[in-house]
């Protein structure tokens, strides 16, 4: 895994990179988070919601690309509902 740029809040995925297939509901107001080295869904949930235990919200919103909440990849774009 390679560390990428810092998280870009609300920035849509860079289409030049290999990206997960966008869910139909994605639009201008979909909030995005780019996974960085050392991130877990728990950590991301703690950062964006203040409470790591809310990580299932992020997992549910990304089930089209995540099959396991423990398996996220650096550079991956996650929807933050």
């Amino acid at each position, binding site marked *: 895994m390679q560390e990428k740029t810092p998280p870009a809040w609300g*920035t849509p995925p860079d289409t030049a990179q290999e990206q997960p297939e966008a869910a139909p509901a994605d639009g201008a*107001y979909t909030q995005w988070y780019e996974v960085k080295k050392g991130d877990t869904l728990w950590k991301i949930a703690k950062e964006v919601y*203040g409470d790591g235990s809310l990580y299932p919200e992020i997992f549910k919103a990304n089930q089209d690309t995540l099959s396991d909440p423990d398996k996220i990849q650096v550079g991956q774009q996650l929807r933050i*509902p």
Partner: protein
Amino acid sequence: MKLKSVFAGFLSLAMAAALLAGCANQMEPAKKAIADIEAAVAAAGPDAAQYIPDQLQAVTTQVADLKMKFDQKDYKGLLAAAPALLAQAQGLTAAAASAKQAAEAAALEAFNSEWGTLAADVPAQLAAVTSRVGILSKSKKLPAGLDAASFAAAKSGADEAKALWDQATAAQAAGNMEQAVMAGRQVKEKLDAAMAGLGMSAG
């Protein structure tokens, strides 16, 4: 000689009387002509002032000129100019109605266009804000950078936006596009503020 002078005096008097009588004969028609024109201007109502101010101004200026002629007892000149001005004044009502109709059609088109933008934009924005507020409401602790007051303001803003959007869509369904757009604009303002307060990026 004396008889001739008396006769000349009588003749002058008679001519002056005839002239005065002639003027008096024209004064009433002149007065009526002005009244008719003013009635035609009044009939055009406030729509004329709102939608065809230049045309209205042109007529009222000419009415003032006629009144000046009346004051100068130029009844002949007044009566000569009156028919054209009356026709112009009578045309104000139709011209104002036509201009009003055109203005309303243009406004409706603009409202329809703006509504199209709002209807394509607001539901997604409302859903994004509502989702975030809902999740943050379950959080045991707010994230860094978001204090309780800001969150409460964003939450109430989202609630108000939801209620206003319901009103906007109801107004649109009822065909009241102006009311729909006005409410829609308020929704956008509230949602933009809520997103900013929550630290969300606006599309």
